[in-house]
């Protein structure tokens, strides 16, 4: 059942990356992130967990090219990423980013149309993505007629049609209820398997990370650094039923042991010595 062999080809690399927000007015500079070193294997599913405000989203934005690193180097497929989203990277955000003035189908087609893809090809890819995300019957609906979970699927479809090779998910299920989140987790696993893309998922839910990822990076309170990287050893064919496995409980417990002190720090409490993770 267990299969811990990971792909070895490096797809994206983060080396010594630090992000410091410069001082503004009477606020001192904020050291949000790093230094961070990470290698993402091609086709790997990597999850990042950490207390709120630890710089998880900053990490994702630097990796995506939405923010520049203050120091260090990010590379994707061997090319440096800096201040611009590279072709082949798709991002899904926590907030509802569906455009209310477009139908579901037009939302999904949005990125393709802006990039000058032929309309027949656009339609083919959109039909495919909508069918995959279970949105086929809602192609002509507007986002305001859909639930939060469905809208998030629209955003995933909008990214999917661009056929990204690295998919970055920034707490995409953070605003959804627990049951919907489990089901969306299954969908993300399907998507990951079908596209063969490398996936990086930011989440604050330890169980979600433990259920979905091949490896999980536990991030410290600000400035965010990886204090532990846990290999789950799940087989590639897996779904939300693995929450019943003993290993699932062990992984979740280990993550919590690492992160408890950090979460207390993030809450403003002094970390208890036994829990100081570094």
């Amino acid at each position: 059942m267990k299969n811990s062999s990971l792909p070895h080809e490096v797809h994206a690399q983060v080396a010594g990356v630090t992000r410091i927000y410069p001082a503004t007015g009477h606020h001192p500079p904020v050291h949000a992130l790093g230094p961070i070193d990470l290698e993402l294997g091609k086709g790997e599913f990597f999850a990042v967990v950490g207390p709120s405000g630890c710089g998880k989203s900053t990490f994702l934005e630097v990796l995506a090219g939405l923010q520049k690193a203050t120091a260090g180097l990010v590379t994707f497929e061997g090319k440096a990423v800096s201040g611009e989203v590279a072709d082949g990277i798709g991002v899904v955000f926590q907030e509802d980013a569906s455009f209310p003035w477009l139908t579901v189908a037009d939302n999904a087609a949005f990125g393709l149309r802006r990039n000058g893809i032929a309309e027949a090809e656009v339609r083919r890819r959109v039909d495919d993505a909508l069918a995959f995300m279970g949105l086929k019957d809602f192609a002509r609906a507007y986002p305001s007629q859909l639930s939060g979970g469905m809208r998030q699927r629209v955003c995933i479809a909008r990214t999917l049609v661009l056929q990204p090779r690295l998919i970055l998910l920034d707490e995409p299920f953070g605003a959804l209820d627990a049951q919907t989140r489990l089901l969306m987790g299954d969908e993300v696993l399907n998507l990951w398997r079908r596209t063969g893309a490398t996936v990086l998922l930011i989440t604050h839910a330890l169980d979600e990370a433990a259920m979905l990822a091949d490896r999980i990076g536990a991030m410290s309170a600000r400035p965010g650094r990886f204090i532990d990287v846990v290999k789950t050893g799940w087989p590639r064919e897996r779904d939300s039923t693995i929450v019943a496995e003993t290993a699932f409980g062990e992984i979740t417990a280990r993550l919590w042991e690492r992160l408890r002190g950090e979460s207390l720090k993030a809450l403003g409490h002094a970390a208890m010595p036994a829990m100081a993770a570094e």
Partner: protein
Amino acid sequence: MTATRRTTDTLVIVIVMLLVWQALHQVAGSTALPAPLPTMIYLMHAVASPRFAENTTTTALELAYALVLAYAIGLAIGVWMGAHRLSGVVGEPILVALYSLPKITLYPVVLLIFGLGISGKVAFGALHGILPVALLTMGAIRAIPPVYLRSARSLRLSPWQTIATVLLPATLPEIFTGLRIGFTVTLLGVLLGEMFASKSGLGFLIINDMSLAQSEDMVTVAIILFAFAAIANALLLWIEHKLHRRV
């Protein structure tokens, strides 16, 4: 079904207003408010007269100029203050204060600057329209969810594509509300301008009729203006609802 209901509603409103008009006429007397029927008969003749056509043209022209100015300046101020944080912080309270000010108090100043001709009335009309257009445009831009911009960047849109395909459609419904309110108050400003220190336009006609005790003519002009404003507003509201329905 809804169309017939709306027609019925409109009919009921018109009948009630005619009844109220008749009642007011009984109380106030013919000098202040002539009865509906004789006024309607008078209206049929009056609208065909050259005097009426001339003054209507004047008002229409002034309104058109004032609207172009109000929309252009209002949109420019609104976009600037919405996009540039510091300008917005400084400018918003000034705009809000100006909006609540009775602008008629500034009319003498406007007249002294722009003169007694058409430009004074155009300027006064535009002065009314600029503020709601600017305030609502600024609000629309500030209310753009930041995630739209991050999405645009992650979908590799150029700055122009971002403006044309994300920012413009995202702000259009609210900006259009500003344009509609701007229309109403610009018309008000132009008519106010014509009522004082003016020798032409429908606003002038109303005041002139009043001093000559030509109450039927006075009410005729009022009815025409009322109908124009109501139809224009209904049309703009209809477009606005179409824009808002999707959001």
